């Protein structure tokens, strides 16, 4: 992967929440790259900071959270080959520039389509609003485009659905409407935060396939946030495994599933039930995710790690490149 195809380059991103009980380091030094036309999956258990990290891409971190340090360089595709670089972390969250990017160039779909759609407005009105906001078109044109988008996401009878309210649609249909809205302005990056978790398996499969097809058509990058390793194996090109605010391993999907290096990734894969001829024993990760106020020292995973060494308690591991497109943060692989 060459740097020309780079869409987003995140370096040492830290997002802290300053609460009354103390500082929660939700994202604590994240580095990742998103390439054009590829799908990056961010996996991790609840509380690892994956949702907070992806909200940072739109600069919609809610108070008391704040981006403390780090940069998120976004390589904008302008009309020429020359890319215009914007650091999203530095933008004013209410400023003009981020509002041009948010919802247009980078858009997002959420887990619960019922709570993220307004129930007081029709599906059409909500899509049209997005289109009107970012494009110089008339209302009639925007409506035509909204119907066209609904058709592309596989909505039956789009010209009728456009005037329906969200509560009249099933969960899968609502998620399709969300996707239509997210894609209505041709984004270069689609962020999908657990888009199928609330859906049934057959609907999940349809939405997963839909996002994959649309990605090809629109040639966009997708950042997929999920805790479901099955979905990761189906959609990802690259995988970032997150634990307590850090990306502990990054690599392409084949490497992560078949040659994982980090003990956490290995343990995660051993703890999921697989559909196979032989019934395998599950090997769960011992203990549980520590409280956000009492994070372990050194390597954050050491209290649950089966390969922990003495030095893991004190030394914080750095990112080690262990192969082309494969990096890991673990002392086992660090050559000092």
């Amino acid at each position: 992967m060459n740097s020309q195809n780079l869409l987003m380059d995140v370096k040492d991103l830290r997002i802290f929440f300053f609460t009354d009980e103390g500082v929660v380091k939700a994202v604590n030094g994240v580095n990742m790259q998103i390439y054009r036309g590829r799908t990056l999956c961010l996996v991790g258990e609840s509380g690892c900071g994956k949702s907070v990290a992806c909200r940072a891409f739109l600069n919609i971190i809610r108070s008391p959270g704040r981006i403390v340090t780090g940069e998120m360089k976004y390589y904008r595709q302008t009309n020429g080959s020359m890319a215009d670089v914007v650091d999203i972390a530095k933008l004013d969250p209410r400023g003009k520039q981020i509002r041009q990017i948010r919802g247009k160039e980078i858009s997002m779909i959420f887990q619960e389509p019922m709570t993220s759609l307004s129930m007081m407005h029709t599906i059409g009105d909500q899509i049209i609003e997005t289109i009107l906001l970012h494009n110089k078109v008339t209302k009639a044109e925007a409506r035509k485009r909204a119907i066209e988008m609904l058709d592309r996401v596989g909505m039956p009878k789009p010209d009728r659905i456009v005037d329906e309210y969200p509560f009249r649609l099933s969960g899968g249909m609502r998620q399709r409407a969300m996707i239509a809205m997210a894609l209505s302005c041709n984004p270069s990056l689609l962020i999908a935060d657990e888009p199928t978790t609330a859906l049934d398996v057959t609907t999940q499969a349809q939405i997963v396939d839909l996002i994959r097809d649309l990605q090809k058509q629109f040639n966009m990058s997708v950042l997929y946030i999920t805790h479901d390793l099955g979905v990761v194996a189906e959609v990802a090109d690259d995988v970032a495994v997150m634990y307590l605010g850090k990306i502990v391993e990054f690599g392409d999907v084949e490497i992560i599933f078949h040659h994982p290096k980090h003990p956490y990734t290995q343990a995660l894969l051993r703890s999921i039930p697989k559909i196979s001829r032989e019934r395998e024993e599950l090997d769960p990760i011992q203990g549980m995710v520590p409280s956000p106020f009492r994070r372990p020292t050194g390597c954050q995973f050491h209290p649950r790690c089966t390969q922990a060494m003495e030095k893991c308690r004190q030394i914080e591991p750095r990112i080690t490149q262990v192969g082309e497109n494969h990096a890991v943060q673990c002392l086992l692989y660090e050559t000092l």
Partner: protein
Amino acid sequence: MTTTDTQISSPNKMAAPDNLLEVNGLKKHFPIVKGVFSAAQGNVKAVDDVSFHIRKGETVGLVGESGCGKTTVGRCIVRAYPVTDGTMRYRMRDDSVIDLAAVPEKELSPFRRDIRMIFQDPYSSLNPRMTIFEAVSEVLRVNNLCSPSEMQDRVSSLLRRVGLRPEYMQRYPHAFSGGERQRIVVARALITNPRLVVCDEAVSALDVSIRAQILNLLEELQADFDLTYLFISHDLSVIRHICDRVVVMYVGKVVEVADALDLYSRPRHPYTEALLSAVPLADPRGREQRKHIHLQGEIADPANPPQGCYFHPRCKFAQQICREQTPELRVLDKKRQVACHFAEAIQLNGVIS
């Protein structure tokens, strides 16, 4: 061995000597009420003619998508609702057989000790104002099942068994994480020494690493306490892992019953095939070859199901007969039952080769 044959036998006999529970023709309809006088406007047929059996010591999975009635079946078995029709023959400890569906409400309490339930969400299924000790021992106290000192011992030894420290039993649920709470819920279900435990999405709300811990715990407890599980879940990988046999439901009806491996390697009902094809497998190799079957349309409305086979509007094999006649759940071979007119004729693909 077939449950369908039991309809002719006497009500106090089971079809097979090792059956613990035989559900036959179970129906649960909820009336749709409208208007000032709550006039019934038809029924939601949440469970519509469900039959299956559970053998002693085995784990039976009940799968299907949301709204298919799997939770309602579980709740009927613990008699959270009165059932509309059908029988649920249950073998007691003394080997006598009783129909749970016919037991009057007032005489249910011994069965409520014998058949327990574990719920999905450990956050909402524990009362925040009750300590762990109170929550786990509640059923013993309410029923006066043992003395206070004995109760203390029983609770603490069970808490230890499910992997919690008994010292913490005077704490309230908020002090525990999701995984620990689910262990508390498990302890509360097992405190009465039940024989059958209905696990309704017992691990669905848990994180990957915690889910594996609870699944292992449930398996250990099954061996230790001689438990039989009815495991209700929409997660087919979990079902494959924990179940011996699987019952697949669609819109209130059973469409297929088979041994887990048989079902996953060779489904015989088109809905089972579609359901299996949709399961994401945790292996990126060969994902280009895997094809999801996209079912047309939406799940049928249980208040207004289609004529004939409920699945026919979405089925690619549907013929005229499927639109007219509802297929019975019939015995295909000795380990398999299926409700499809063309089960023998069609070739379907599984997910285990």
